[in-house]
């Protein structure tokens, strides 16, 4: 199998997993789930670092460093804000018991 086709297979299989894992989420969790998924696509940071590592001109370096900053904000901020939301849900359950 060619490399491109292998990547395409991964892509297609991931679509099915993505559909499957969130199929039964209650409305209560929509907001944290969206926020968590939002943090996960911050993994573009990995791509930003990779292109920055291999930058061959100043323009490439500047653009990729900017991408690193934006991606870090997306990833780190996303996970922190999701945790804050979920922390409140946890506090609520403790109250009930």
């Amino acid at each position, binding site marked *: 199998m060619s490399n491109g086709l292998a990547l395409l297979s991964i892509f297609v299989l991931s679509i099915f997993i993505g559909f499957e894992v969130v199929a039964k989420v209650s409305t209560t969790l929509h907001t944290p789930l969206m926020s968590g998924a939002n943090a996960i696509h911050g993994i573009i940071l990995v791509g930003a670092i990779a292109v920055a590592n291999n930058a061959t001109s100043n323009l490439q370096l500047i653009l990729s460093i900017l991408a690193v900053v934006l991606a*870090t904000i997306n990833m780190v901020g996303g996970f922190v804000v999701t945790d804050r939301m979920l922390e409140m849900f946890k506090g609520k359950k403790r109250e009930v018991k």
Partner: protein
Amino acid sequence: MNRNLYDVLGLVAAACFILALKGLSSPKGARRGNIIGAIGATLGTILVFWAPGSAHKHLIPILGAIAFGVIVGVPAARKIQMTQMPQLVALFNGVGGGAAALVATVEYLKLGKSASTAEVLATVFTVVVGCVSFSGSIVTFLKLQELMTTRPVIFPGGRFLIAGTLAGVFASAAWVINSGTTSPLLIMGGLSLLFGVLFVLPVGGADVPIVISLLNAFTGLTVAASGYVLQATLLIVAGTLVGASGTILTRLMAAAMGRSLFGTLFGAFTAKPQASTGVSEARSVKSGSADDVAILLNYSQRVVIVPGFGLAVAQAQHTVRELADLLTSKGIDVAYGIHPVAGRMPGHMNVLLAEANVPYEQLVEMEEVNPTFPQTDVVLVVGANDVVNPAAKTTPGCPIYGMPILDVAHAGNVIFLKRSMRPGFAGIENELLYDPKTTLLFGDAKDSLTKVVSALKAL
């Protein structure tokens, strides 16, 4: 690092993301899921510094950029008030989309003429969708932050402008694919940014969460496409997961709001002109004092509180809980009727009330609370409007038509705590305010509630 070890660890990070989404979909595993996701992301980020076959240059500026991103992102996420959280998520999503567009651009500059057709296509996709996600998210941020109007922005010829911009995006994309040079890529990026703005402007305030969710899924797909260009499996898996789950989530959200996705995105183009609201200005409403409200509450047997965004803005979560506790101690049955999109996003109100330690069993979802309204003596609407507006059922063509609402009109009495007669986020007049069984208590939600609490104690 050994190529095989590198790939295996990458696979572990990818598995973390699957577990993270799985965890986030159930109340029990949600917080753990998020932490697993963060571990996967950290692992992936550390790993890339040891990527085999990479030049590993520019380490200092990269680490500096990461540090800077953390310094900006973490305090923003920690200090944001929960009421403003939706726009922060929109903003984070936007910068992610922007980052993906930049990554694809840099890789394109580097590959130059040697890029394969598939790589150029993936680059074009990433830049277009990343730019749309970026500028679209900025507009949703401005709408939610109320830095601009929350009503749909429709201008004459708007639909032609949008269609023209979209055609321009496609034309410039074809140009990029044929020529393989840089300037058409910049033109395409610029047109995509413009398209993102035009695409979100006509969306009404109440539908903004659906758009955020959709743009979130878009950004996921751009990450997957840039993963294809970079031959990075982790990016493909993570991006596709977000794209797929985000699409499902967008559809679920639209269903919870009773909207068709198509109608939300293109509704502004097909909407009939709304009836003028000017006529209703002169009509009289019944406004009461805090004492009137307290007496009404005191002699009821069942009270349903309908919290809305106004409650959150006034930071009245704690006061409303105090009132509910007081009523419960008087033997009155109290429940909170939670509309799926109360607040600014689905589930947003649950987060806000959880912050105030409201007991979980008092939070009743719309489907369960609606049949109980005929047996309810008093409904206390605190800073909500659109979610109880009967126009959603009676006025075809209004922006919220078709959205399921809380049928508070079936209750014995309705009390609205409002700051003013200003219509809600969606900008529609609420007929219920003029109903004879409705009493209005004007003022800041927190002040009004405090007065009602002390009046109740005095009884």
